[in-house]
């Protein structure tokens, strides 16, 4: 069999695989559908180049296989052809880059009305904090973190007192409300990623990183850690439940607020001292 | 390879000459000794190492939450009971720059095949370098005595100690290696290895005074790096 046939079948197989693959995107559940569109565009342009180049190669292999009496063409350079190819490629690259940069511009500019969510990561788990009625998150420090203050909130920060604390790896979000995820880590790198939302960013100890998205489908989604964080990396999961406003508010009302926790602890402290006195 | 002699080739000056050399066969840098070309490229690579160190230092100094110590207090030296800022470091810098001067003279006398003068000047450079390393050791022990460690210091951010010891240590290692080679080369000059074109211990090349210039390039580079370290650590 001529080797060209096998190469041709490889190209054909790649195209068929792409068309019939059962392995493909999960349905997008956020505002980042544009990323999928850019990927599709890249597939058309890039895939087109791949197929064209490979088919040309296969054609050459068939057409110009070695013959004793044939002499190859002698043509060191073709300035015109090279120029055309350079410009055509440049054009293709610009066509791919431009939409990519537009979307990135959206990605780095967070809408003003976005709800800030503090996502705190450690080896190996997540917990979340929402701003209270004042709409602002209290500042935090790693050294403050302990059993009484699981988020390490600075006690002298008035904004921190009414923060809503979700000591669970499942976070509820309101449908169609933009969310600004503020990531921090107390030990190593992590990354809070929901495949259906498309967006992601590393959590880096020492700094706070961010990204935003707007969920637009209700339902339950799985959170994966996608930055290698040690032997438990593959098991570091969480969840997101996207709900309509009413249900979301119901859930929100049930959550504990930081001042409640302080009060509870003070009460316990008082009782403890009473016990000791007795 | 001994000093290349080029017959029948006129080198044109300027950009045109450079383009012509680049387009020609055999060598790109006409008449440049292999070892000398090698040293230039090595130094370029070494420049990247020190740049990485200094850029890391800037980034580290910029991002640490604790305040950076004040260099004129940390590096002050008591002279007759009065703390003079940067006294020691000024002397160290002076010594090192002077040794660059003696090195340059050694190269000149080497090419004039003035064995004695060349040897003495290389030796003087070596002693200058040794003095520098000695004073640096003194400064290190002073800082250590005051409680500065790579992982902490009483004056402020811990990263101050980390970067200071790492970068001056890396530079000091460069100087020390240079000093060792200077002593070896001083011996080789006095013993007349370059006049007799004696082969070195490890190389198949014949000895030549150009080796003094090659070592000189390294030495000037080490001095130049010191100027940057001086500016970044002591003046910033």
């Amino acid at each position, binding site marked *: 069999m001529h*080797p060209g046939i*096998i190469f041709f079948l490889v190209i054909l197989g*790649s195209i068929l*695989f792409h068309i019939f693959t059962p*392995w493909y995107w999960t349905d997008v559940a956020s505002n*980042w559908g544009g*990323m999928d569109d850019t*990927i599709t565009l890249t597939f058309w342009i890039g895939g087109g*180049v791949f197929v064209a180049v490979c088919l040309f190669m296969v054609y*050459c*292999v068939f057409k*110009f*296989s*070695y013959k004793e009496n044939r*002499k190859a063409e002698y*043509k*060191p*350079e073709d300035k015109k052809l090279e120029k055309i*190819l*350079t410009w055509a*490629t440049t054009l293709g690259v610009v066509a791919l*880059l431009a939409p*990519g940069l537009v979307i*990135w511009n959206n990605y780095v500019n967070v809408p003003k009305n976005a709800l800030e969510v503090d996502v705190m990561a450690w080896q190996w788990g997540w917990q979340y904090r929402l701003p209270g009625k004042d709409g602002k998150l209290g500042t935090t420090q790693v050294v403050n973190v302990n059993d009484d203050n699981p988020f390490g909130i600075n006690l002298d920060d008035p904004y921190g007192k009414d923060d809503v604390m979700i000591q669970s790896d499942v976070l509820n979000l309101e449908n169609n409300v933009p969310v600004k995820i503020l990531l921090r880590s*107390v030990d190593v*790198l992590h990354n809070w*990623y929901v*495949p259906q939302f*498309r967006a*992601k960013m590393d959590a880096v*100890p020492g700094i706070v990183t961010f990204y935003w998205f707007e969920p637009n489908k209700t339902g339950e989604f799985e959170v994966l850690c*996608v*930055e290698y964080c*040690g*032997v438990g990396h593959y098991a570091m999961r969480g969840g997101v439940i996207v709900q309509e406003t009413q249900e979301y508010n119901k859930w929100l009302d049930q959550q504990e607020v930081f001042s409640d926790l302080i009060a509870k602890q003070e009460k316990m402290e008082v009782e403890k001292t009473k016990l000791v006195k007795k | *390879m001994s000093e290349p002699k080029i*017959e*029948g080739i*006129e080198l044109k000056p300027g950009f045109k000459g450079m383009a012509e050399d680049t387009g020609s*066969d*055999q*060598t790109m*840098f006409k008449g440049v000794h*292999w070892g000398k*070309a*090698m040293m230039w490229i*090595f130094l370029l690579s070494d420049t*990247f*190492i020190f740049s*990485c*160190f200094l850029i*890391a230092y800037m980034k*580290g100094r910029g*991002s640490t939450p604790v305040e950076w110590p004040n260099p004129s207090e940390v590096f002050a030296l008591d002279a007759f009971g009065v703390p003079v800022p940067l006294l020691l470091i000024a002397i160290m810098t002076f010594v090192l720059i002077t040794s660059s001067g003696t090195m340059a003279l050694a190269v000149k006398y080497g090419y004039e095949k003035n064995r004695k003068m060349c040897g003495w000047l290389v030796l003087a450079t070596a002693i200058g370098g040794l003095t520098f390393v000695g004073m640096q050791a003194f400064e290190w022990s002073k800082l250590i005595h005051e409680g500065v460690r790579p*992982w902490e210091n009483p004056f402020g951010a811990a990263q101050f100690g*980390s970067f200071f010891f*790492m970068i001056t240590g890396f530079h000091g290692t460069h100087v020390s290696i240079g000093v060792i080679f200077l002593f070896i080369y001083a011996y080789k000059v006095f013993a007349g290895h370059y006049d007799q074109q004696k*082969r070195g211990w490890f*190389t*198949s090349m014949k000895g030549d005074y150009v080796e003094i210039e090659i070592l000189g390039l390294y030495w000037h580079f080490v001095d130049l790096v010191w100027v940057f370290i001086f500016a970044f650590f002591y003046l910033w």
Partner: protein
Amino acid sequence: MSEDYNDNKTIHAQSSETMGGGSAGVTPDMDYVRPAEIADQDLYHGHSFITKWIFCQDAKVIGVQYFLLATFTGVVGLILSWLMRLQLGFPGAAGFVTAEHYYQFVTMHGMIMVVYFLTALFLGGFGNYLIPLMVGARDMVFPYLNMVSFWSFFVAVAVLMASFFVPGGPTGAGWTLYPPQTILEGTPGSGAGILLMCLSLILFVAGFTMGGLNYLITVLQARTRGMTLMRMPLTVWGIFTATVLAMLAFPALLVGALMMSLDKVLGTSFFMPTILKAGEVLEYGGGSPILFQHLFWFFGHPEVYIVALPAFGIISDLISVHARKNIFGYRMMVWAIVGIGALSFFVWAHHMYVSGMNPWFGFFFATTTLIIAVPTAMKVYNWILTLWRGNIRMNTVMLWCLGFIVTFVNGGITGIFLGNVSVDVPLSDTYFVVAHFHMVMGIAPLMVIMGAIYHWFPLVAGRFLSEKLGKWHFWLTFLGAYSIYFPMHYLGFIGVPRRYYEMYDSPYVTSAVGMNEFISLAAFLVGAAQFILIYNIIKTLKTGKPAGKNPWKANSLEWLTPTVPPEHGNWGDRLPVVHRWPYDFSVPGAKDDYITQTTPPSEVSNTGVEKT
């Protein structure tokens, strides 16, 4: 000891050989070549077994030494990949592959393959063997330094392998060695393992610097008469430019490794912020983990091209020789190599789009990254245009070349996905990335290495490798590797994250189970197929068909040595004189379909040679 050296021939004796008169002022006729500028090189000739084969100063022997040691590390890397695929395809099938071990295998596989296998093989192996031969030098310019370079590499490999046997085992922090993870208790190999890794990398960089200086000065200052830069084979251009990149990129790795070691040993906090571990605040504080990532990728991205550029160069030569046609657009090819090399220093942070660095960098690095696509695409066009109207020998070497084009274009296109910042966001840290870089800098360069082995083996050993075994080797490797990595991209689309020891309890990745089993089976097959080559080499050394001089009818100097295989000093009494570029194939009017580089114009005056 002095009888061990050639005597230094005077320059004058060489100049008098110049055809058409040496000195300026005489009108040069068409065969004129500039007179010699550099004296013939003194070489140290070893006499004992040790100086001839072990502590040897001959670049060709050093090249083979590099080749063998790199291949050994490559086999170790291959075995590690088998163990990883065993766990991924059939979780729990091999009980001893625990999560700790799995991550150690991932780390060591990555580091070994990128640095100790590919880099050492291309630059140390092919570079040492081919550069002096291709530019017409007797040896590398500093043979002793060259020898030390190899033995530094040897010690680096020994230290790396030693980390398998220390308490705690080798580091399991991922080949990127990101702090703080890398040196924190609880990470596999966070004690001796990571220190040995850093030490080994530092030794490798030191050894490489010695070799690299040799390659550069040999190319710049020791070419033979008539060998201008624009007459050098693209192999030399590729290796040369890659070496420049390495000389400027490895410093960042060296600094990163050094600072990391200090964080571990002395407790400095270069990369270590305040950390809460198991309820206790550690003594670290104030450092920046992202600083390490910048240092690492300032090395890491040029590193990709350190592997790719020699591959580009070698493949150009192989295609040209076996298509019996000049490489199309030689000048463009040279400028593309140089341009890609220069640009590669301005794109490193495209590995860090979602690392938490200032996101505004994304605009800059996405743009620079996609600009690199243009010269790279030009190279691809020129390869296939070289095939166009050629006279293509469909032998094993050409098959590897064709396999390279398919895998490289595939991997290059997926690179455009990942370089385009917002497309990268959903794909980064998934199997798409794994598939992309294995295709473009694993399989594609491997195709080149294999092609180069089949091409140059007749020169090194004087015998042809078996074509029949070679074709089996090729088809199993190419089809197997393609069916590993092509479908793997689609796992990335689903969102399957990389570096997962096990993943099947996620509801939407259950469909990936079957795919993972298939990929693992293909991986076992491809790995096993590599042993065909080893068998082929052993068999050929014993009973292979003798090749004779210039068996492929090539033009470049390495095939024109007086003896095959070339001896120490390469050229016998007289150095070759070069009159043309190495791609004069099928010149109209010429008797043969090739004109060697040493053929003077007067011998082929009636032909239509266009470029010299």
